[in-house]
């Protein structure tokens, strides 16, 4: 269920004053509250990690007997700096804002952080939605990384391979990205349907296979940059790049809109489309689906293909949105973060969007945090993990924060096991 929905669903008899209803809402373990507290929890854990691993604070705590005040002061300032940077780097930097307000210039500087956050949220939304569709059909797609690469490869080839005017070229590139990912998803799909090979195994293996394939293609004509002997691809032309939304300096681009559109479509698809319903049924009880005339094999293939296509779009969105070329370092953790984001969003596109924004903010902020406070960016991974831990166990959050059991908007988080 979506946060929005649970907000409406908070059960309190009509005629209770609004503030009572608000109070009731914020003290019950509904999605919104739990997620918020999860974020708090994540930041707390992160803060502790900073304190116990920063020499300065450790030193201060060593002398806590003599100067307890100092210990706290140092800890606070260290954590404060770090998290200040985290915020400034991901949402808005107060100093930049102040500067802009006073001088009236440098507004782009004000919006850069949020733009960067949106940029790194884009592939997460797409890939996360893809994985979520799989989950809600009982298919566990760990192949995000592979499908990402496949999509990126296809988009790149079409990007430099063909020359067309902007619009048709872009359309082609987008389709190519989807197609590439779809192919990478189709493989485990068909294997599971025809031979029963478990998608978890196959998708994991495909991740490595695509990594190696990328490495190979990058040193091979035509992908490799001409005259370049390094494993680096040709750069895609302007016509194949997703246009920026707000001027050249802010990198947030059309990819974001595509991602949001896809999420909305997916939400509709899972809730209202007949195929989505078929997926749900087969995810919940394949044999019942079969009795009702559904084709479980076809559905399995379709699910993994669609799931792959969306992840492939994520690959496209990075190549033609921000990178414009491929190299061996491509991809990073997007494929795996997609899984976490899907879970954080409870397999609901809306949730995935929100989750992606949160994750993106943490990692863009993390970059700035490392630059300013020299706290390794990996801290944000830890924070992200803790958040999902807590979202996945509302009962725990309820206990820690003494919340009431939620009526409506109760959190139901599930995946299917191996399913055989």
């Amino acid at each position: 269920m979506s946060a929005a929905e649970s907000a409406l669903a908070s059960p309190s008899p009509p005629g209770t004053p609004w503030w009572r209803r608000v109070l009731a809402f914020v003290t019950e373990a509904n999605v919104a509250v739990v997620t918020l507290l999860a974020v708090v929890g994540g930041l707390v854990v992160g803060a502790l990690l900073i304190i116990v691993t920063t020499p300065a604070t450790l030193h201060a705590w060593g002398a806590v007997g003599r100067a307890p005040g100092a210990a706290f002061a140092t800890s606070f300032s260290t954590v404060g700096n770090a998290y200040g940077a985290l915020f400034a780097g991901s949402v808005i930097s107060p100093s930049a804002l102040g500067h802009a307000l006073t001088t009236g210039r440098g507004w782009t500087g004000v919006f850069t952080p949020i733009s960067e956050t949106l940029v790194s949220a884009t592939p997460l939304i797409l890939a996360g939605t893809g994985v979520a569709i799989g989950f809600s059909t009982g298919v566990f797609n760990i192949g995000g990384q592979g499908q990402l690469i496949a999509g990126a490869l296809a988009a790149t080839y079409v990007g430099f391979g063909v020359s067309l005017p902007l619009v048709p070229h872009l359309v082609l590139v987008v389709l190519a990205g989807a197609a590439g990912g779809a192919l990478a998803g189709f493989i485990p799909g068909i294997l599971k349907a025809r031979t029963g090979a478990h998608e978890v195994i196959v998708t994991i293996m495909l991740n490595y296979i695509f990594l190696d394939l990328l490495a190979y293609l990058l040193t091979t004509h035509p992908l490799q940059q001409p005259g370049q002997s390094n494993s680096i691809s040709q750069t895609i032309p302007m016509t194949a790049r997703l246009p920026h939304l707000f001027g050249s300096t802010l990198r947030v681009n059309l990819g974001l809109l595509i991602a949001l559109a896809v999420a909305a479509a997916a939400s509709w698809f899972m809730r209202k489309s007949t195929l989505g319903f078929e997926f749900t049924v087969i995810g919940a009880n394949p044999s019942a689906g079969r009795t009702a005339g559904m084709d479980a094999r076809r559905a399995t293939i379709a699910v993994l293909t669609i799931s792959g296509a969306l992840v492939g779009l994520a690959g496209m969105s990075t190549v033609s949105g921000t990178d414009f070329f491929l190299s061996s370092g491509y991809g990073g953790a997007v494929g795996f973060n997609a899984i976490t984001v899907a879970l954080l969003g409870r397999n609901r596109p809306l949730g995935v969007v929100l989750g992606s924004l949160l994750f993106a903010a943490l990692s863009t902020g993390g970059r700035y945090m490392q630059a300013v406070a020299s706290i390794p960016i990996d801290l944000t991974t830890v924070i992200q993990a803790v958040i999902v831990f807590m979202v996945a166990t509302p009962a725990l959050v309820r206990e820690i924060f003494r919340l009431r059991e939620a009526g409506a908007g109760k959190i139901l988080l599930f995946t299917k096991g191996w399913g055989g």
Partner: protein
Amino acid sequence: AGAGASTAPRVAAHRAPAVAVPHAAKHFLACEVTDTGGINDRSFNASAYLGLKIAAKAIPGLSYKYLQSNSTSDYAPNISTFIGEKCGIIITVGFDMAQATQSAAKKNPNQKFAIVDFSYTPAMKNVLGLVYHTNQDAFLGGYLAAAMSKTGKVGTFGGQDIPPVTIYMDGFVAGVRYYDKVNHAHVVALGWTPAKKRNFASGAFAGNGTFTNDFTNQALGKTTTQTLIAQGADIIFPVAGAVGLGAAAAVKQAGPGHYMLWVDTDGCVSAPQYCSLFISSVTKGIAASVSAAVEAAARGTFHGGNYNGTLANGGVALAPFHQFANKVPAKVKAMLNKLKAEIEAGKISIDPNSYPAS
């Protein structure tokens, strides 16, 4: 390979004793953006960072920091973050970052950059490209390895089939073949067979060799090395950054009579626990040239362009023998010095294909 028009070793010129120049002394921030290998890769990222540290020692008031890149998509934002941080100079590491660096440099003509393992043609005003002719010292390493091998087989492998790696292996193989030629020996170099003709754009392989396709998976490095040893090699030359530690583990396990050449840095400094295995190291003066570039920038004497590290300007070198100082025959040492001189003078070829393979 990579024989770029060697401009005068400008950078090296500034590596005189570091006297703190007042106007540079107040505050200067030097920044490094790592590639996906990470700051602790025991290879060019680490070396570049060492360069920053050296510069910081040399120049009071110089502070430094780094940003980790986890994927290609991080390069541009990492660079712009540092631009926002008012870094005096930004060191970018690896050809992966060439594009990001170039566009950032174009956008910010006053921002100084130095990029490791890449050179721009035409050269840029505010970017210093640092490239190293490591086939020169690798040639010496190959000769040394061949001379020290008891089994008549030496082995090498790379982290990935890319020029910064294979150029080492070319030199190494050339050195081995040269040894065979002049000593009528039959030492074989496993792990890399350079193609007669290099032609990347066509997609033909620049040779046929052993690669881990990974700069971090040390276990793979260990397996590969054990394989080389199993196939008879007794001296291993891994060209794969931290994966080399896997190689070291394997060599150590293989027991006495098995040794190796470390790469990029002096192994006895960067991986001291294995110093007893390192006959020598085929180094690449990243730290020195980076620190030189930083110091130049701090002193306001920075010029863009390209820097080619060679044996001649000390940009590449064969490291000291350390524990092998008296195990390496004097004859060999003398020969190495002679070869060094000849290479500097361009008197002998370091192209593997100019010598017959045995």
